């Protein structure tokens, strides 16, 4: 026994460097794969944003982001994301509160959270067609309203393929996402806090503005930011709905990829892509910060 114990450290100490190397070898396939299909594409975007058509460094692409059509696209993308995030956050929070007050293990809560999980994933082309079938020109609701009440929802122009329509369609996946990310925070609210407020003579209004509101505010804000990033990076839904023009940044990038028409602008698409990454990263960094603050009380 003593022999074995004495022998063990020796054997380990013999080839420490080699052991480290063989251990590293095990992780090589993963790192190689990630390098080729994630790191290199990221570098292509970052470096390409600062490269001219003939190579060489230039700031022309980044300067082109100041062009009015690109600025407009960023403005519209941000407006669409902000509005759909706000609407989704408010309605999603109401739904989450409705669930939080229901029985924790009840059928209602389980069915709705499962459905929210599915609907938050529902997007892209399928969602676009769902809305075309509903409020498209010959959609179910459009036809029904026209035939029954002779109301034309498109009397002011066809808004489905523009920002108002996109906002409505995006809300469809934003609300369920809000339910998923905000429900845990609501569950962290303890009934004792409300009882404590009441035993100290506080009203419902005071409870919500002085106790629950401030506690939930970071979580609500953080979730809203997440929703913003979610719709800001969405492409497929908009691509399937909008076939004319490129009102949003992702659609501008599509234009830059599919038709390299303008000479000297080949890398502008990469600069726009970099712009998107920066916006999403800033939003996600704020989200992480707020998340940390939330977990202090409602973890």
């Amino acid at each position, binding site marked *: 026994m003593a022999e074995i114990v004495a022998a063990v450290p020796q054997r380990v100490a013999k080839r420490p460097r080699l052991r480290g190397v063989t251990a*590293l070898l*095990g*992780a090589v*396939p*993963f790192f190689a*794969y*990630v390098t080729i299909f*994630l790191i*290199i*594409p990221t*570098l*292509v*975007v970052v470096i*390409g944003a600062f490269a001219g058509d003939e190579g060489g460094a230039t700031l022309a692409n980044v300067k082109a982001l100041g062009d009015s059509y690109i600025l407009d696209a960023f403005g519209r993308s941000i407006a669409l994301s902000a509005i759909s995030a706000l609407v989704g956050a408010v309605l999603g929070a109401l739904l989450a*509160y*409705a669930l939080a*007050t*229901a029985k924790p293990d009840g059928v209602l809560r*389980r069915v709705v959270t*499962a459905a929210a*999980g*599915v*609907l*938050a*994933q*529902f*997007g*892209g*082309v*399928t*969602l676009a*067609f*769902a*809305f*075309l*079938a*509903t409020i498209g020109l010959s*959609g*179910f*609701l459009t036809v029904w309203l026209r035939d029954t009440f002779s109301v034309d929802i498109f009397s002011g122009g066809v808004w489905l393929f523009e920002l108002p329509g996109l906002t409505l369609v995006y809300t469809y*996946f934003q*609300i369920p996402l809000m339910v998923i990310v905000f429900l845990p925070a609501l569950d962290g609210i303890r009934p004792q806090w409300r009882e404590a407020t*009441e035993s100290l003579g506080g009203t419902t209004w005071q409870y919500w503005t002085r106790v629950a509101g401030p506690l939930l505010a970071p979580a609500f804000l953080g979730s809203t930011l*997440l929703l913003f990033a*979610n719709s800001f*990076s969405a*492409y*497929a*839904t908009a691509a399937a709905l909008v076939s004319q023009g490129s009102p949003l940044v*992702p659609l501008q*990038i599509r234009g830059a*990829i599919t038709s390299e028409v303008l000479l000297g602008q080949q890398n502008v*698409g*990469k600069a726009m*892509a*970099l712009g*998107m*990454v920066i916006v*999403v990263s800033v939003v*996600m960094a704020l989200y992480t910060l707020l998340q940390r603050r939330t977990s202090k009380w409602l973890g």
Partner: protein
Amino acid sequence: MAGVIARRARKQRVFRWAVLTVLGVFFLLPLVAMVEFSTRDATTWPALVDWPELSERYPALAEGITASLLQAALTALLMLVLLVPTAVWVRLRLPRLRRLVEFLCLLPLTIPAIVLVVGLAPVYAWVTYFLGGSSLTLVFAYTILVLPYAYRAIDAGLSAIDVKTLAEAARSLGAGWGTVMWRVVLPNIRSAVLSAAFLTVALVLGEFTIASLLNRTNLQVAINLLGKSNATMSVAVSLTALLLAFVLLMLLSLLGGRRRTSAVVAPAPLKEPAA
């Protein structure tokens, strides 16, 4: 006090049903509309069920369906082969690299698919050069796309068991690393692996951005194309794809519900839903 609580419970019940009714209508209406829209033409659904006729009348759609199913299966396989051994190995032998691996796996969350496709274009020029332009080559990009969700699922599964002790026990009984992976670790994280695979399949079946911009085909690309010529059929296929995703993710959440102890990931935030 009891009166106050009862009154509040009643108020909350009224509020609950009001919210659920209004939002329920909003969420169910498009689904009902899809059913109504796709049944306007009586030949749509029979054609969809009849595979030989479908592939004859809509060859692009049939090709897209086959491509998507193969992509989903292959992506799940590649993801597992790449991720499970690495995650286990890093936990056992390279604990210092764990943060790096986690960072890399979660990185795609901050890179929208439309941005990734810009950077992937030159990489795929090489992929096409070596492997050809088959739509199955999309599996490489999809594996990156599902990395955050798959990693979270598998990492949660590994956290729930004591990998180190299990591996040491197996090794001291003479097992090689292959046996440790295949017969010791894998059976213990079965449900995590299953949920990672389900999420992967659901995501791949809904992917559109990368496939369409790299000029390859899959289900969503085919649906989008079909929408231009035959709206009824494309709505019917959309509904079918949606129901399929619904069933998959419902199974996933049931799986998660049954195993409360191992934290199976909630459908993860920040991504273009199924796109």
